[in-house]
């Protein structure tokens, strides 16, 4: 095959592309096999149909959820919460992380407390949050903000503190003011680390959204959809809900990767 590729007049990209496509589709093999197996099992009625519903039933539920608008309402509520918490947590995280990274004085003052604070498991906050803020949207957004805050603070601070000293010296040689040094040296140098933090915050806050909806049960959302399904023993609804959660997570991941690549390209970073 490689022989054929080299003998054709320089049109080598075609077999290469082909190869790349094959590889890309390879990841779909497992899910397809799993779905086929699932379908076969439910078809053969080997397992209790209430525990393992058929793919057809899940599809019907999906269609129902989509056409009646229930899905959109739940998804809309969850995503609004997610984004609100993400934006609040990330903004606070950027500010706190930058302060911790730039100011030695501030770091000595707040650093130890923050390091203790971040050791507390996120879900350990739930009882306190539910007492202070109830079970509604405020409580959930507070929880999500916390989930987003920690990775942003840690990565922003690390990124800023690990600005290469040789580059800081260059700034000093050319008489950069502290403000110029921050915006033209420290911040660009820390951008990949900061992005990692924001990316993690996005994923964490989505995971935390489901957790919050599951533990602070009030209102609508994808998490509530799951609870509803489990309470009414509607496995089709549960499976559909899980599928939606996974899909949203996957989309966020893909979006973040895309932005990261664009960013890396923009700053000409060598990997």
């Amino acid at each position, binding site marked *: 095959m490689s022989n054929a590729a080299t003998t054709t007049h320089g049109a080598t990209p075609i077999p290469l592309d082909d190869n790349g496509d094959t590889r890309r589709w390879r990841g779909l093999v497992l899910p397809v096999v799993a779905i086929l197996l699932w379908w076969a099992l439910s078809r053969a009625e080997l397992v209790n149909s209430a525990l393992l519903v058929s793919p057809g039933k899940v599809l019907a539920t999906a269609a129902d959820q989509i056409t009646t608008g229930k899905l959109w309402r739940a998804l809309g509520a969850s995503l609004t919460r997610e984004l609100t918490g993400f934006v609040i947590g990330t903004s606070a995280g950027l500010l706190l992380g930058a302060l911790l990274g730039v100011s030695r004085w501030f770091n000595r003052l707040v650093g130890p407390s923050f390091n203790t604070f971040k050791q507390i498991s996120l879900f350990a906050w739930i009882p306190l949050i539910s007492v202070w803020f109830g079970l509604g949207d405020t409580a959930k957004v507070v929880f999500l903000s916390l989930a987003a805050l920690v990775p942003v603070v840690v990565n922003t601070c690390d990124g800023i503190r690990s600005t290469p000293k040789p580059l800081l010296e260059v700034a000093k040689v050319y008489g950069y003011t502290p403000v110029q040094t921050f915006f033209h040296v420290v911040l660009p140098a820390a951008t990949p680390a900061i992005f990692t933090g924001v990316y993690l915050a996005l994923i964490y806050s989505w995971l935390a959204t489901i957790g919050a909806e599951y533990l602070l049960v009030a209102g609508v959302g994808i998490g509530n959809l799951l609870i509803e399904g489990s309470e009414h023993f509607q496995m089709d609804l549960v499976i559909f809900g899980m599928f939606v959660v996974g899909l949203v997570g996957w989309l966020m991941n893909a979006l973040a990767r895309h932005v990261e690549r664009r960013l890396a390209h923009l700053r*000409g970073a060598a990997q």
Partner: protein
Amino acid sequence: MTESATLELDLDLHGVGKRYASAQAAGGVLQVLDGIDLNVRSGEFVAVVGASGCGKSTLLRLILGLDDHYEGHITLGGTPVQGTGRERGIVFQDHRLFPWLTVEQNIAVGLRNSPHTAAQKRDLVAEHVALVGLEGFEQSYPHQISGGMAQRVAIARGLVNRPRVLLLDEPFGALDALTRARLQTELQRIWEKERITMILVTHDVEEAVFLGDRVVIMQPHPGRIRRIVPVPLAHPRNRSDPRFIRIRDDVLSDFLAPDGAPAEADSVPAEQTDLYRRPIPSLASLQMAW
């Protein structure tokens, strides 16, 4: 050129010394430089050569103003040197270009706080891109060009705001032999064209003799000047000229001679080797237990 112009004093070092606190050294103090006296004429090319650990890079950092804690006096054009300043440019061994800026933008870094207008800055950058022969690479990023080209960019950045003195800290030390030889010739051409005072620190004796009007030989423990060898040969120099070889061997003999301090000594704090290695933030460091 008039006689007075060539004799004009530019950079004057008088009794310059530097010590670090060090747990390993005797008495807890490590004397890196001691009693350095050196006068550099305007437009002169001085090459400082010495084994690693003789304090030659420290000397450049003091002239550059990155370190203000030293003994003695350093004056430039009669004014004491205080902190960094645009009249002193530098080319480091590691090119130290900003990886997120293009070649053009990296050169313009040298002009960020200069009084030029935007148009003048553009012209100056273009002029210096041409000076170091990088036309066509203006929009490239540092990772897209070779080490030799990156060092050319660093030279252009060092020269772009017309410093009185350009300091070169082993600028070609990290390059392969062929690129190094080419850039030495290049640097000599630039120096002849621009007539800027240059002080080159190197451990390459041939490089020192090839480029320097004078070669300052340093020796360690503490870092001091052993002797200063004039190189009365016209530029550009021929490396196979018997006179060139004689001077080179003379300088080299200082490092091969059994007397004096041993040539290899690395007790000085490693200054700038590992600074680029930055830790990748690990997920484990987040300590977020679900």
